[in-house]
């Protein structure tokens, strides 16, 4: 490829139809931030309904018009908001946004490549992703409103416009948009895999890859193997909706009319959905864990503990994630024996997860911790991962799931272990690699305020929800007023809403810091965190092609922090081994 860096590029090819992985990474990030703000505001709006049931908020009417008559959300629209909140956060922010940003930024830079294997496919993957997001936004304005059947869009609810208004045009857009998203994910994933396998620089063996790359690698494989199944489900659902087939529908009598569907099974859809859906939560989680592995090692000034076990855990988690999907379906009438199998596979996932936590803790032991905002968010993620991980052991047990399936216990569990935790990983990544992306530093002090208020709010919002779930409070309820027994939670619901609102306002502090620093932040130095990985060997204003000269050669693993007998407390990967020096943490 040679020296690409100093070509004169037009505005369009540089910022819009860019094929430079670093620019594509920024495009993913900005898009994800934009979508995250929308989804977050939605959560504030529906939390207002849950916290202050029956109260009028004129602002809701001015924003949503007929969907919030007199300032009270319409029940159907409440479900639409919940559905879009979930869809946008899961797919736009934490799948496309998280992987798109960091796989694009880190893979070529950390393996020592000039760009992705195919810059063109990479560009296409962003544009398909953008189309998906546009579909989601457009669907907010169509007749009947956006998809409202929950982010899992189970048929028949999602198949029949008679069942809920959102299953009309909104649902069509959701499904077609999802097809676009899957195309994006597949193009991106293939590219990531090929790049990691083929374009590593000299000396970058697989076991010298930073854990971030291992995580992104396994994530890409999961995506490539599981997204096609969701595509199949979406297409079959489109057929059922529009062309009268009966893949998922049977024996339905709705709105006083018996429909002609026969022989289909909604449970089949659930199987197809969760065959993606479960790997999906690892597609979200693994990149975040990869990010914090780098951030923790760099800022603890210490090698990540048990590197090989970490790699093995990632691989094992990736493998297991394909054989646990049934834990979402224990009470669907699925054969109970099959349920037993899924119990066993599910609980086994806790083993590699526990190993990862222990290794992070051991990494912090006798460290020399520099609390950059990235490090705070990384430690915060470990904290959330512990809290949310342990409750998975309860939900994975079919006998216990009977009583807490689809209650607020589940909402608490997945928000902590996957939602907030991956968002924290994403924040850690943004604060850490901001200097690489924009050549400037973010404001640390604002980062500290951002972190401390956010973590308190996250626990304030989601921890109490465990108790609501254990008391039998179902999720996806517009109001609890129909069930006298839940009035005991009225006060708790107010507090949850207060914390949720506060936490979303604090995110604007981050956003202000982010955009302000892009233009006005202090100029960064080449390796501000004194890190070992290759991306920090590129110049600050790095052009297309990454290294102005030759690509650096790699001589050691990425975790030589505080190695005895060295002058500095870090030794970048491109520094040759001294005579007699052993690589890979032996000394």
């Amino acid at each position: 490829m040679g020296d690409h860096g100093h070509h004169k590029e037009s505005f369009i090819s540089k910022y819009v139809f860019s094929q430079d992985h670093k620019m594509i990474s920024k495009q993913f990030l900005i898009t994800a931030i934009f979508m995250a703000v929308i989804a977050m505001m939605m959560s504030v709006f529906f939390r207002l309904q849950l916290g202050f049931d029956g109260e009028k908020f004129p602002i809701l009417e001015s924003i949503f018009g007929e969907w919030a008559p007199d300032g009270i959300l319409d029940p159907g629209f409440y479900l639409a908001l919940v559905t879009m909140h979930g869809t946008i956060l899961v797919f736009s922010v934490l799948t496309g946004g998280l992987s798109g940003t960091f796989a694009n930024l880190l893979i070529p830079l950390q393996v020592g490549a000039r760009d992705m294997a195919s810059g063109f496919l990479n560009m296409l993957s962003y544009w398909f992703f953008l189309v998906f997001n546009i579909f989601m936004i457009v669907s907010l304005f169509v007749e009947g409103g956006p998809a409202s059947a929950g982010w899992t869009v189970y048929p028949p609810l999602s198949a029949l416009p008679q069942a809920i208004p959102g299953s009309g045009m909104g649902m069509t857009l959701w499904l077609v948009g999802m097809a676009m998203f899957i195309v994006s994910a597949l193009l991106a994933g293939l590219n990531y895999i090929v790049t990691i396998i083929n374009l590593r620089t000299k000396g970058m063996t697989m076991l010298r890859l930073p854990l971030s790359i291992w995580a992104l690698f396994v994530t890409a494989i999961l995506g490539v193997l599981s997204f096609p199944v969701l595509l199949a489900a979406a297409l079959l659902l489109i057929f059922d909706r529009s062309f009268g087939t009966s893949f998922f529908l049977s024996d339905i009598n709705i709105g006083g009319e018996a429909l002609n569907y026969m022989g289909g099974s909604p449970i089949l859809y659930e199987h197809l959905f969760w065959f993606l859906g479960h790997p999906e939560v690892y597609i979200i989680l693994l990149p975040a864990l990869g990010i914090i592995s780098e951030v923790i090692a760099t800022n603890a000034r210490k090698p990540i503990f048990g590197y090989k076990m970490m790699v093995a855990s990632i691989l094992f988690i990736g493998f297991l994630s394909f054989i646990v999907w049934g834990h979402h379906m224990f009470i669907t009438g699925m054969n109970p024996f099959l349920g037993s199998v899924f119990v066993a596979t599910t609980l086994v996932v806790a083993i590699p997860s526990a190993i990862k936590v222990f290794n992070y803790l051991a990494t912090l032991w006798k460290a020399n911790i520099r609390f950059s905002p990235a490090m705070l968010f990384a430690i915060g993620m470990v904290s959330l991962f512990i809290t949310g991980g342990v409750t998975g052991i309860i939900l994975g047990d079919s006998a216990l799931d009977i009583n807490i399936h689809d209650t607020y216990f589940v909402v608490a569990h997945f928000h902590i272990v996957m939602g907030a935790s991956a968002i924290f990983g994403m924040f850690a990544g943004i604060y850490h690699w901001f200097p690489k992306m924009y050549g400037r530093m973010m404001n640390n002090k604002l980062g500290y305020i951002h972190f401390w208020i956010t973590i308190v709010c996250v626990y304030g919002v989601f921890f109490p929800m465990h108790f609501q779930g254990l008391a039998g409070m179902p999720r996806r309820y517009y109001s609890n007023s129909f069930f006298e027994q839940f009035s005991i939670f009225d006060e708790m619901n107010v507090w949850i809403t207060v914390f949720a609102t506060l936490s979303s306002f604090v995110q604007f502090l981050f956003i202000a810091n982010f955009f302000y620093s892009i233009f006005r932040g202090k100029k960064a130095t080449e390796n501000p965190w004194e890190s070992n990985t290759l991306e920090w060997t590129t110049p600050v204003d790095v052009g297309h092609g990454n290294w102005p000269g030759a690509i650096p050669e790699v001589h050691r693993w990425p975790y030589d922090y505080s190695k005895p007998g060295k002058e500095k407390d870090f030794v970048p990967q491109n520094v040759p081994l001294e005579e007699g020096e052993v690589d890979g943490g032996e000394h």
Partner: protein
Amino acid sequence: MGTLTYIVIVLGLLAGWKLIRVYELSEELRGSDTEEVTESDNKWNGILMLVMTLGFLAMAVYEVITYQQFLLPPASSLHGPEIDMLLFVTFVIIGIPFVACHLVLGWFAFAYFMKEGREAYYVSHNNRLEFIWTAIPTVVLFALIFYGLAVWDSVIYPTEREEETLVVEVLGKQFQWVSRYPGDDDTLGVVNYRLIEGTNTMGLDMEDPNAHDDIVILGEMHLPVNREVRLQFRSQDVIHSAYLPHFRVQMNCVPGMATSFRFTPTKTSQDMKEELGDEKFEYLILCNKICGSAHYTMKMLVVVESEEDYNKWLGEQKVFYASEESKVIPVETLAEVEETSIEEEGTSEESEEVENTKI
């Protein structure tokens, strides 16, 4: 009004921008650098980490204690206590690593914050340690798996009881529950979703004599205490989920598919009122699967009472066929019934099978 909101938001963002600028200038004047991680940043964040950890654990303990009273009362079914016990044991087992890991995390973050003269200890792995912390979770989790599966097994396949199992059908539809009792012949008559019309909420097929004495009730169900019941679930439109939290029972209602759950209520509604000191207490079926706009309103009253009271109540219920309403049903559905009769056989076979697998 709409535009006004947007203007306010934009102005707010601009104000935020300016505030940061002012803040930065003032920091610059004070000579501190907001982009550097300073010695005092490390110290304060380390301390805060410990404070947060302890605060969080204290809050967790506080909430466990104060919200205890909000949780479900002890189970009202025969299999329930087993689930409650499993839940308790699991909570203890996960509680230990939960507390321990948080303490360690908070402590390390505090004890090892960066300061002048501190050096990190270069250690990359330790096979013995790693073996231990792989082996322990493995053993504990396998024990939990076996315990959990044993409970699952005894919940799904309860030991046979002497007296006959009562069969009640529950139909979910937007946004109501309907129950059906087999009547004197102890056999539920054939139903067909195409026959659901007007007052024939269950789609009873009157060609079938077994259906003639079936009793159909909207929004209410009575069960005799200490007698095993098998609830058979159906849905007429979308997926619903019949959730009876007090009995530790839940099962999805899926259109086109028969599901069921077998259990034995052990406390009457009256018992529960006394136990909880709440005259208004009632057992309910909630809908626990998103099923449409009014999902949150879908409930059914469940009354558990003595065998006598139950029989008395049942005797007072009108048989659907004999009731005024059934006359509304047009008889010309015969043709339709014949057309779909093959399918009905399929359905009844399916329910046979369900009887064998008990779920």
